[in-house]
């Protein structure tokens, strides 16, 4: 049997072109007809819909309270879709009282039950639609149906279920997600999972700990990142165990979480993490140290200012500027590092925080610094460049820097 290429070849261009012309013109006509028909249909559909939305909106309170019997609209698919959409949109933007009223309406009218049923029975896009709607309701009875959605073979369904559970923002939803990842592993992109867990574990972050202990990489890193976001002072001791973890993300998470713990506990750990070989661990440690606002963190922040990574330098500078006291001494210490990138980072942070004037005033008023040195510091502040190496001045400045260390 001849191949398709042989057939085309034997047909020759002339015969082929005639057929192709016919096919192309028929396609053009069909496309045009489809576009025009679709436009006409949609125009009519939306006109009808707008009219109905207007009518329902006028009777919204009666509809919500149940004065208008649910059966009046529930059996008409067109009305049902509109009412559900309107209720979910209202729920999205409503205050707690109104939310409770809307949720009651969704329950009483059987809309939640219907969506739970659809989420369990349907597959594909219809299941996704049901899961999204359930997530929007934030009704706890939807959690189990959403949890079942997590075990669907289609990743889009799993994502919709995950987002829905995240929307619940409750520990029960977190339990379902954590049980699922412990069972299946990481079967969705990390970010939606982290996002959902951050929302759900914010209330009880300690529920993450057993899962982090027994999870394996890369799930462990993902959970570590979540822990870093939701950690509270109460977790101080638990976070310590991750400070020496072999996974970079977990060390970073510990560093991030330590900013919420007691200074006595955090200081040594964060100082150590600020010298970690991984840049983002150092970055998190420096950011956390900056948040502690304790003078004992200044030496580490100063060393962060000379870090090889520009983000670490910048965050260290921001941390130093945050002190707002002892600015002249800190500035002297910054100069003493003899690191021009560090100096730039500090001046940037200073100017971004609009604190340059404060430093000038403090330099003017300082009694600890002699006049020559003041001139030198002012010159650095003005030019943004390090002074030429001068033994006397350097030792003078270094004394102030040493005092800070």
């Amino acid at each position: 049997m001849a191949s398709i290429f042989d057939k085309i070849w034997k047909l020759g261009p002339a015969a082929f072109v005639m057929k192709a012309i016919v096919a192309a013109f028929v396609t053009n006509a069909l496309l045009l007809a489809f576009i025009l028909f679709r436009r006409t249909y949609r125009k009519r559909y939306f006109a009808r819909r707008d009219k109905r939305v207007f009518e329902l909106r006028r009777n919204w309170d009666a509809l919500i309270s149940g004065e208008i019997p649910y059966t009046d609209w529930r059996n008409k698919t067109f009305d049902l879709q509109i009412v559900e959409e309107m209720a979910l949109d209202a729920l999205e933007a409503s205050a707690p009282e109104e939310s409770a009223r809307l949720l009651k309406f969704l329950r009483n009218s059987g809309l939640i039950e219907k969506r739970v049923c659809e989420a369990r029975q349907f597959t594909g896009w219809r299941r996704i639609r049901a899961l999204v709607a359930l997530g929007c309701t934030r009704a706890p009875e939807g959690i189990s149906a959403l949890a079942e959605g997590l075990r669907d073979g289609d990743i889009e369904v799993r994502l919709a279920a995950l987002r829905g559970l995240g929307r619940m923002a409750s520990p029960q939803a977190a339990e379902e997600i954590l049980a699922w990842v412990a069972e299946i592993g990481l079967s969705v992109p990390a970010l939606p999972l982290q996002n959902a867990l951050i929302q759900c574990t914010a209330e009880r972050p300690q529920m993450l700990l057993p899962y982090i202990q027994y999870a394996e990489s890369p799930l462990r890193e993902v959970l570590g990142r979540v822990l870093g976001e939701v950690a509270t002072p109460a977790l101080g001791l638990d976070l310590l165990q991750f400070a020496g973890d072999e996974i970079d993300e977990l060390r970073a998470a510990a560093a991030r979480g330590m900013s919420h713990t007691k200074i006595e506990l955090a200081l040594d750990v964060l100082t150590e993490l600020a010298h970690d070989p991984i840049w983002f661990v150092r970055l998190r440690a420096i950011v956390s140290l900056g948040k502690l606002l304790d003078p004992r963190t200044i030496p580490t922040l100063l060393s962060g200012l000379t870090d090889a990574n520009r983000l670490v330098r910048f965050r260290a500078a921001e941390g130093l500027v945050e002190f707002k006291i002892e600015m002249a001494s800190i500035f002297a210490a910054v100069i003493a590092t003899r690191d021009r990138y560090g100096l730039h980072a500090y001046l940037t942070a200073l100017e971004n925080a609009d604190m340059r004037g404060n430093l000038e005033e403090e330099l003017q008023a300082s009694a600890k610094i002699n006049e020559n040195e003041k001139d030198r510091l002012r010159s650095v502040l003005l030019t943004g460049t390090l002074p030429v190496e001068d033994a006397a001045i350097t030792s003078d400045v270094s004394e102030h820097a040493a005092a800070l260390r």
Partner: protein
Amino acid sequence: MIRILYISNHMLFWYYLVSNLAYLTMLIIAINTSARHQRRLGSHRLSWIKETPLTPPIAVIAPAHNEEGSICVAVRNLLDLDYPQLELIVVNDGSEDCTLAVMQKEFHLRPVRAIYVPEMKSAPVRGLYRSDVDARLLVVDKEAGGSKADAVNAGLNAVTSPYVCIVDSDSVLERDALLRIMIPILENPKRVIAVGGIIRVLNGSEIKDGQLQRVRLPRKSIEVIQVIEYLRAFLIGREAWAQGNMLMIISGAFGVFRSDHVRSVGGYRSRAIGEDFDLVARLHRHMREKGVDYEIQFVPDPMCWTEVPSDLKSLGRQRARWQKGLLDVLWPSRNMLFRVRYGRIGWFALPYLWLFELLAPVVEITGLVTIILAACLGALSGTFFSQFLIFGYAFATVISIGAVLQEEITYKRYNDWQDVVRLLGYCFLEHFPYRQMHMLWRLQGMWEYLRGDHAWKPAKRKGLAAARAH
């Protein structure tokens, strides 16, 4: 002679057939992808992306050169973009007018020594300014570098965010454009290194205070034809190429990149004619040479509206420049062709660009000449000649209508019936004589490049200030 003409015509036939089939395949892929994208968006809520603490910061770089009339509106629009952690870096690229002065007055700029690490080559920086009105605004004032690439490099040197979005300061971004363009990155931050958004034609639309009020089709034929071209290029071409991770161009008017990767390839090439295409090609090369798993994505709904040339002369210049840019990138990338190391880029994307983009004007013009010659010499039947022309016309129309269909079933920005009918009408009219003129402009671009004219010449635009008058 007759034999040569016969072979040439035969080759031309197959060239057209393969090129049209390639476009048809792309159309099918694109329609399928768009439909999936629309459904996927159903489970997304942009407000959730906004609320999550995991949304990474973005620095938006907007180069400006002599834009005193529109810069304030543009900056305000960019600052109004819906995104949780945004930094705006406006680069005043040696403007000879009062661009910097009007920004100083409007945004209370004060000189700062912000972080500026000159890792990427650019003309000397005169000063850095931060706004007292909105601390997210940083202005880099530099000497004229003679190219947009040079200005963007200066902006990149001041970036501290992990992602950078390059825009044209005279384009209009929809408010949620950044949130939308970040979706692929948020879904897979380790793998996705760059995302391109869609560019749409602004001409004809109603603008108020730099914000798009109502989308309308332009009045001039030449502008409407460009609307179809943009729909075809973005909604079919880029959508389909991105599906195979072979997207070779992210428009300089709107794209997001991971800053560390842009730095690692040295930023934009200052002397590049098509700097946006050049950057993406170098990113592909870099990632493939490093053997890193990566993705360059395209998202069709974060929209950036830009002004297109409204007269033949400007359009001709623009298209000649694009062709020069294409050659300027493809020639240095020739060693990527058909090499296992560069995978699908070397085996599909680059050969396609060589064959059906770069050489298209040469093949089409030569083909027309040989067909006419063959018809005159009696080597080609008049019937076949006319049939061939009709076939080319009908097939090209299918692709154009397909692009309009894509717009209709997905984003539907043209709501007016009159606009849609006109748009569809132009799908039939664009082929003569616009297509032939287009080929001549592109041929001219190639000729200029081969003669050594490698200068970067910006296109003249009316800008946002003028657009407000619509």
